[in-house]
């Protein structure tokens, strides 16, 4: 459904951020994008949803294709219309608007009041907490509630694929769990594909089917999530499991037992 081939992105004409990213998201798939900070994960999402030129970035090579159509130079409004919705990093909301107004803005492209009403009911079904605070100014909600609102707002627009940028940022473990459960429910029931960028590798690999690992602007590894979880390199670099089961001694302290050979 969504294909990215050899994508290259440059910011401000000088900063070369993505150096050849390729990935694919099938219909209804749950894909995760892993990597440490600065790998280019958010930039990949922004390239898909078209907001790059609002941040002085540009796609200089490769393409993004969605259902057969190239999205390279389209405006973010057209891409949202096509069904790709991004939830930005850091719980970005319209802070001075109320919860319900935020959701209504999410449904800006819906054609009728009835459609708006039914989508609103659906979102409140998935996130009952939001129904209790429809008229509260969204800037004053707690972190978990704001994240629910962000996902709900994305859901309002009848997305075919949702790009989630670090949904678990700054949330308590229980709240993270409930958000991820909601994401899985939405994926199954509404048939919405998810491209999940996460730092919380363990949680991300547990709910997704397929994963891509990015380092320094390139995809360096991909595979089904179960295989990634058992991969020795991923275990050491991202899951913090090295020499599991053996007794460690301080004498053997060395930062990388394996050389990171992906960084060429």
């Amino acid at each position, binding site marked *: 459904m969504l294909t990215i081939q050899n994508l290259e992105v440059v910011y401000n004409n000088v900063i070369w951020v993505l150096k050849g990213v390729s990935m694919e998201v099938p219909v209804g798939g749950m894909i995760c994008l892993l990597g440490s900070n600065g790998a280019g994960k958010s930039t990949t999402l922004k390239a898909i949803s078209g907001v790059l030129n609002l941040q002085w970035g540009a796609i200089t090579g490769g393409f993004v294709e969605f259902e057969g159509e190239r999205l390279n130079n389209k*405006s*973010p409004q057209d891409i949202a219309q096509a069904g790709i919705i991004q939830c930005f990093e850091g719980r970005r909301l319209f802070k001075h608007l109320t919860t319900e107004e935020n959701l209504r803005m999410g449904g800006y492209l819906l054609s009728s009041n009835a459609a708006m009403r039914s989508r609103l009911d659906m979102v409140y079904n998935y996130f009952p907490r939001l129904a209790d605070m429809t008229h509260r100014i969204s800037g004053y909600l707690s972190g978990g509630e704001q994240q629910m609102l962000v996902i709900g707002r994305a859901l309002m627009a009848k997305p075919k694929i949702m790009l989630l940028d670090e949904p678990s940022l700054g949330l308590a473990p229980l709240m993270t769990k409930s958000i991820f459960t909601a994401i899985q429910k939405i994926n199954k029931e509404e048939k919405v594909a998810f491209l999940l960028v996460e730092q919380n590798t363990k949680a991300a690999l547990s709910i997704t089917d397929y994963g891509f690992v990015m380092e320094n602007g390139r995809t360096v590894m991909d595979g089904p999530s179960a295989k990634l979880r058992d991969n020795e390199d991923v275990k050491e670099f991202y899951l913090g499991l090295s020499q599991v089961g053996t007794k460690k001694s301080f004498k053997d302290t060395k930062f990388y037992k394996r050389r990171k050979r992906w960084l060429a």
Partner: protein
Amino acid sequence: MTLIIQAILDGICIGAIYGLGAMGLVVIQKSSGVFNIAQGMFMMFGGFIAANLTLNLGMPMWLGTIVSMGAMAVIGMILNFLIMRPLAGEPPFTQLMATIGMLSIMYGLVMVIWGTDPYIYPSEIIPIADLKFLGLHLSPSYVNGFIIALIACLVLSEYYRRSKEGTAMRATSEDEELAASVGIKVTKVLKLTWSIGAACSTLAGVLFGMLGSVNYMLGEIGLMAIMPVLVFGGLESFLGALLAGFIVGVVNMIVGVYWEGSFPGITAVVPLIIMLLILIVKPYGLFGEERIERI
């Protein structure tokens, strides 16, 4: 005693007009985040265009007002397209300087096109007779001003609060990038904003002109009275602009009645003094939006 009540009544009427003028700027501030210092010029320009239409072309007053509102809406859109849009990502100070530039140019243009002589409108928009009761006297231009300004204020604020487009305008002012990613056409919203803001101020300018005459001093009213009204009502609030307008109008009238004789010109300074006092207590204005920050 009747003097004070008369002053209060007149003040409320003028206050509604101040509020309407300030609302034009609130509209622009709300959705593009630009503090448009040239707003007073929209008032003046609009007032003069209406004067031209009604006096030279003989249009009835209500038609002349509507046509001049339309003309100023178009001019507002053009100004946004030519001047403000290319400065979109620049720091707010740069955008402010651009509006100051617009102010100077428009001021000069008014003098060049229409000269410094005052024009007097041929009639009021709603023709009614003088109201005399209980020893008080309300002239038709004041009543006109009050009714029309109030209706315009209510219509505008309801539009912003309830309608989808109004909420979209508030969302755009908050975060343009997020608005774009939700599907809101940001350039369309900004064009609409500048036209509504300009049309609003034009109506205020015409209503002011009806009270006395249309002359180049209208621009002064714009700067000296409407800016303070706006600032202490809260830059993003319609209700605040209206209330602030009432306060300034009433206080201005009372001060004018008692002290204009002994301190000539004090009425011009009163709005600024009120603004200072209120800002000391409430820095964001009476109804302004406080910045929401997570600490």
